[in-house]
């Protein structure tokens, strides 16, 4: 079960787990029962002061401190969990009057409860109080693995201008066909005797002569895909002879996801394939062997959101037949002919993708970050540095724009070295550093080329490269701001435009910084980063490679799974990159993007191929939480899993905290009455009071998705009984919300401040790799307000987060101005003036 939690929690002691926790989400009728029991006992007395001395603090010390500690820190063997949490003051007051003191419920009610709750809330309970008491600090971090890879790619890309140019709108590959003009061959005489070898040889010489004189046929075109079965014919049976011809395809492939791509080339003829690295063939199958179609498979690791050059050559000579198919398997896809939308006729320069394996980044706080170093990590940085140095060495003429032996060679290599180090360090280097990093290397190395290698190794091993936000002494300058923007938005280095802005002192005011951030949003790197966030936000790791019981769901194969992923990402992209970029649409859309295969499975019929918007009854589909990819991921192989769904919804969508389960309970289907619905089974399983503390929240949310089976299809029956998706659920604010299904749930979440906070919080820590409260106790709230004002514009939020991160350590007014400036419309302001924390019951 622990895998369903995003973050680890301290283990509760026996005592604590048996006691109901204020800080948690413990709610419900069970509590009243236990309170009633205890009130039968002899009432305890408290020596409480009267009048103005009867302060919240005084009440706390008399009635609460013996179990909770004088500062709410907890007391071993009594209640050892520190008292802090996310309840509102109102909710906390209610809770105290209903349940406290534990052994004398009813002793602290009315004014007393109000006062003590206010004291507790302000002194240590609320997140703000916690932030004040324990201000979190910025953790110096090295780059994560993903950041390292993009950074190196962009660092070397700087020497290959245009390497990252997004391909044009044309799709498909450029093709050049070449062959011999068709001759009218004499009709073969079936009675002709077999030619003897010597005669054959003589005939061949004749052939060769004729061939030289035979006119060629050539033509160019763009092919949408490479899948051709010429059989015994030529590509142009009217004009081109069938026995001998060749084709060359050029262009680039568009890789959406980061990961290993497998290229599969099928042909019985001669083929050669190069991807990204045009100097070294990925597949060399130029020599054919016999009439059988051969299948060549090679894998390449590629960074997502980028394009890579591809070149494919084909030739046929005397083989009986000819065919070629170029397929791939993307990181989470299935084997398919490379589709037209992933091919472009434009060629690009090489992108350097580091192959070195790094140890996995620390995820112990719930997101990948670089706050630790290890021997293995250091070793990986060494291997990667060597890998890059070897690449630089092998391409030095190209990268430095010089030739060995020319008079300006040394100067050019020094220029290269400076540019490389400055790129890697994200700022110009001082004269002193120039001496260390460059001059010195050229002095000690036997040749200038070895010096360059040393510069590369030294630079890539330097903390200035590995720790992008390493303090440079003093206040952050324009280069620091540029580096932080690039890190938050791109996981990479500042580009030339940013560096120029820094050099010209044009990264100082909020407007200047914001203008850069908005510009950067349009770069494909931001799209790639936002993809990464969605993967993290929706815990898509769970969906990768899942399999369903083939008896129950015979249609749900790897192809469907791959299609669903595409469908989800296309939906997310459409919403985020639309004008409104509205977070609420993510949660509330009543449509899915489906292709014919998915449409059929999910009960719709559509015309044409490809993915298209398919509208549903608003009750039946409600945004990402009802996307079949997620619903299938948060389900077991045969059945739904309301607990997995509920925990995800609670934490990530509704934004409430959960404590870890006090005991591990496995769901064993066989133990239940075979006639029960899943809801009935879960209700039975979690009926224990200790469980209901959290399951009082988890279950209603999870049950609201019971209308979707284990592959996310709409259903109205479970185990031959009607599905019941109706429940009441209690919010952190102490309100009860009536949910009749997914639509109510997402409406609640989309309008609820704690849901917004959860989204902002997760987006922030994913983008910046630091917790949001590092940037100030009010930062989350400030972001939430501006998110609301912007009409929940996701892109704006992305850029504002980057601005907050970029301006850390700047003088307060500038930083604040930077973080808060938005262009709200008046109506949005008016809306915001209303308390946003009390959603109405539905």
């Amino acid at each position, binding site marked *: 079960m622990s895998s369903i939690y995003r973050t680890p929690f301290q283990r509760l002691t026996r005592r604590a787990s048996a006691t109901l926790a204020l800080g948690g989400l413990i709610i419900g009728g069970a509590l009243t029962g236990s309170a009633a029991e205890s009130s039968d006992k002899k009432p305890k007395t408290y020596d409480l002061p009267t009048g103005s001395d009867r302060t919240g603090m005084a009440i706390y010390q008399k009635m609460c401190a013996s179990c909770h500690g004088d500062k709410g820190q907890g007391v071993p063997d009594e209640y050892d969990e520190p008292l802090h949490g996310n309840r509102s003051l109102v909710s906390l007051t209610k809770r105290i009057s209903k349940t406290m003191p534990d052994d004398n419920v009813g002793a602290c009610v009315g004014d007393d409860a109000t006062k003590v709750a206010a004291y507790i809330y302000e002194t240590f309970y609320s997140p703000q109080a916690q932030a004040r008491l324990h201000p979190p600090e910025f953790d110096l971090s090295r780059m994560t693995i993903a950041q390292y890879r993009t950074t190196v790619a962009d660092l070397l890309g700087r020497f290959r201008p245009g390497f990252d140019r997004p391909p044009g709108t044309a799709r498909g590959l450029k093709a050049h066909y070449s062959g011999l003009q068709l001759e009218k061959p004499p009709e073969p005489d079936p009675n002709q005797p077999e030619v003897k070898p010597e005669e054959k040889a003589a005939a061949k010489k004749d052939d060769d002569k004729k061939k030289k004189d035979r006119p060629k046929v050539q033509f160019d075109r763009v092919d949408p895909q490479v899948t051709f079965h010429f059989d015994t014919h030529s590509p142009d049976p009217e004009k081109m002879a069938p026995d001998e011809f060749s084709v060359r395809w050029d262009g680039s492939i568009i890789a959406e996801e980061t990961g290993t791509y497998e290229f599969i080339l099928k042909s019985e003829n001669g083929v050669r394939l190069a991807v990204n690295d045009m100097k070294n063939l990925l597949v*060399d199958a130029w020599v054919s062997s016999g009439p059988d179609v051969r299948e060549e498979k090679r894998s390449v690791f590629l960074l997502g959101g980028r394009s890579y050059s591809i070149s494919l050559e084909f030739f046929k000579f*005397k083989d009986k037949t000819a065919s070629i198919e170029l397929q791939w398997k993307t990181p989470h896809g299935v084997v398919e002919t490379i589709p037209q939308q992933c091919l472009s006729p434009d060629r690009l320069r090489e992108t350097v993708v580091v192959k070195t394996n790094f140890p996995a980044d620390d995820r112990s706080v719930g997101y990948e970050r670089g706050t630790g170093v290890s021997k293995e990590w250091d070793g990986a940085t060494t291997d990667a540095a060597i890998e890059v140095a070897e690449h630089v060495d092998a391409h030095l003429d190209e990268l430095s724009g010089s030739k060995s032996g020319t008079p300006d060679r040394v100067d050019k290599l020094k220029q290269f070295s400076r540019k490389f180090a400055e790129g890697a360090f994200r700022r110009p280097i001082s004269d002193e550093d120039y001496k260390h990093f460059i001059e010195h290397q050229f002095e000690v190395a036997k040749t200038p080329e070895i010096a360059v290698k040393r510069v590369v190794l030294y630079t890539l091993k330097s*903390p200035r490269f590995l720790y992008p936000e390493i303090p440079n002494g003093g206040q952050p300058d324009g280069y620091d701001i540029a580096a932080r923007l690039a890190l938050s938005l791109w996981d990479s280095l500042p580009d030339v435009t940013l560096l120029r802005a820094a050099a010209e002192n044009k990264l100082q005011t909020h407007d200047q910084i914001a203008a850069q951030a908005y510009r950067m949003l349009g770069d494909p790197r931001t799209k790639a980063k936002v993809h990464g966030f969605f993967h993290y936000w929706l815990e898509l790791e769970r969906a990768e490679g899942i399999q369903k019981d083939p008896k129950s769901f015979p249609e749900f194969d790897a192809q469907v799974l791959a299609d669903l992923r595409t469908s989800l990402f296309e939906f997310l992209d459409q919403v985020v990159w639309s004008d409104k970029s509205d977070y609420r649409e993510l949660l509330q859309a009543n449509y899915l993007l489906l292709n014919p295969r998915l449409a059929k499975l999910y009960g719709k019929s559509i015309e044409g191929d490809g993915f298209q918007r398919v509208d549903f009854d608003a009750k039946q589909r409600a945004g990402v939480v009802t996307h079949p990819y997620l619903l299938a991921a948060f389900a077991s192989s045969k059945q739904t899993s309301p607990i997995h769904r509920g925990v995800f919804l609670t934490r990530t969508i509704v934004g409430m905290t959960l404590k870890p389960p006090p005991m591990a309970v496995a769901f064993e289907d066989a133990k239940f009455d075979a006639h029960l619905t899943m809801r009935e089974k879960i209700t039975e399983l979690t009926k224990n009071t200790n469980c209901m503390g959290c399951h009082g929240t988890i279950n209603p949310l999870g049950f609201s998705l019971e209308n979707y089976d284990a592959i996310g299809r709409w259903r109205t029956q479970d185990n031959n009984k009607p599905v019941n998706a109706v429940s009441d659920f209690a919010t952190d604010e102490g309100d009860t919300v009536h949910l009749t299904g997914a639509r109510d749930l997402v409406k609640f979440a989309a309008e609820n401040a704690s849901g917004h906070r959860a989204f902002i919080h997760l987006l922030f820590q994913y983008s910046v790799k630091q917790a949001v409260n590092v940037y100030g106790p009010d930062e989350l709230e400030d972001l939430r307000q501006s998110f609301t004002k912007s009409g929940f514009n996701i892109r704006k939020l992305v850029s504002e987060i980057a601005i907050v991160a970029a301006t850390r350590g700047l003088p307060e007014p500038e930083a604040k101005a930077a973080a808060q400036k938005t262009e709200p419309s008046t109506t949005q302001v008016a809306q915001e003036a209303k308390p946003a924390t009390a959603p109405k019951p539905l």
Partner: protein
Amino acid sequence: MSILNRRQFLRRLGVSSAALPFLAGLPSLRGAATPQKRQRMIIMFSPNGTLPADFWPDQVGDQLVLKPIMEPLEPFKDRMLVVNGVYNKIRGDGDSHMRGMSCLLTANELLPGNIRGGGGSPAGWAGSISIDQEIKNFLQANEATRTRFGSLEFGVAVPDRADPWTRMSYAGANQPVAPIDNPYQMFGKLYGRMKDRDNLVSVLDDVKEDLTRVSAKLSARDKALLDQHVTIVRNLEQELKHNDADTKMAHPMPELDPSVELVNDNTPQISRMQIDLLVNSLSNDMTRVATLQYMRSVGQAQMRWLGIQEGHHSLSHEPDNNQDAYGKLKKINTWFAGELAYLAKRLSETPEPSGEGSMLDHTLIVWTNELGKGNSHTLDNIPCVIIGGAPGVKTGRSLKLEKVPHNRLWMALAHTMGHDQLQTFGKAELCEGGALSLA
């Protein structure tokens, strides 16, 4: 390719032993503690046929009188076995050059394919494993004879293209094994990233210093992480120093001339570099099986270092009475013999790790060719000169056999390497009579 870089790089190839710990995990690098008895084999190939009259000794038996082409091998006359009468009887698809090359070590027919030569039907790759790979697999299957690489394929001036004229070694049907003809690349393969590691070791001091400089500007909290980083770097450095004291390879890495461009005219130097690496890899027991392939079948090397401007293959087509061409071909083939002599010399100068004689005493070198004679394109009587020592091989003589299929020669070679269960090799019909006796 950036020649200069490689040049500068390799100038520093006296890689310090500080880099050695990086290799600690690699088997056989330092050699076993108590060297076992080792038997090795090298197949050396040169292309385009020979000149029989100036190659084959006139006399059969122990009174070996070397003809002009073999003169450079004079010092190894006692260690030589010349085998006349070996035929490549493989027919089927492909021209003589293709079959001469790609059936040379496989002794089996080519697969049909799309590659057309100067006659016959188009063909593809070899249809089965080559003898070097067969023996490699045999040795690698046994713990006692397993080495890091199992086999190494050296090339000299092999053009950068893959077709049946450029490949003689096959891991199996359709699986050509490319020779490495770049000594720097081979060096990289043998000694890993030692050269880069060495560079790294030399910047470690700088890195440490930089870490300290940067660290000085940090708050105590941030410093903690960097201090940890410094410790890792310092430990690495100490490990290197510690290992420096007690790590020694059986044989030091060879010193390669760092300034050789990979061009035709530098072939003589490249050849020697490859031979040095080959001997070194054998002495460090990285492999016991190697091939050394000069150029390729139909190769057009222009041996200007011998004063020859024309391409080798074109010359080999000239009739015997073209005295100019004949003289040049003699020079060319004599040059190959000289390279073989250098290889034999290097092995004979290197003591066998077990202490029993030299490495040549435990190595068989087989020098062969894809054609018997260039201008006739015959696969009959292909050159076969064996130098070295192995149990059951009697040297210092010339043998004349009666049209023996070369399948049986390879079986004999396998037997000397301990692979004596090999009953047939390549095309089974041609194996009648079993392994040749070389005793």
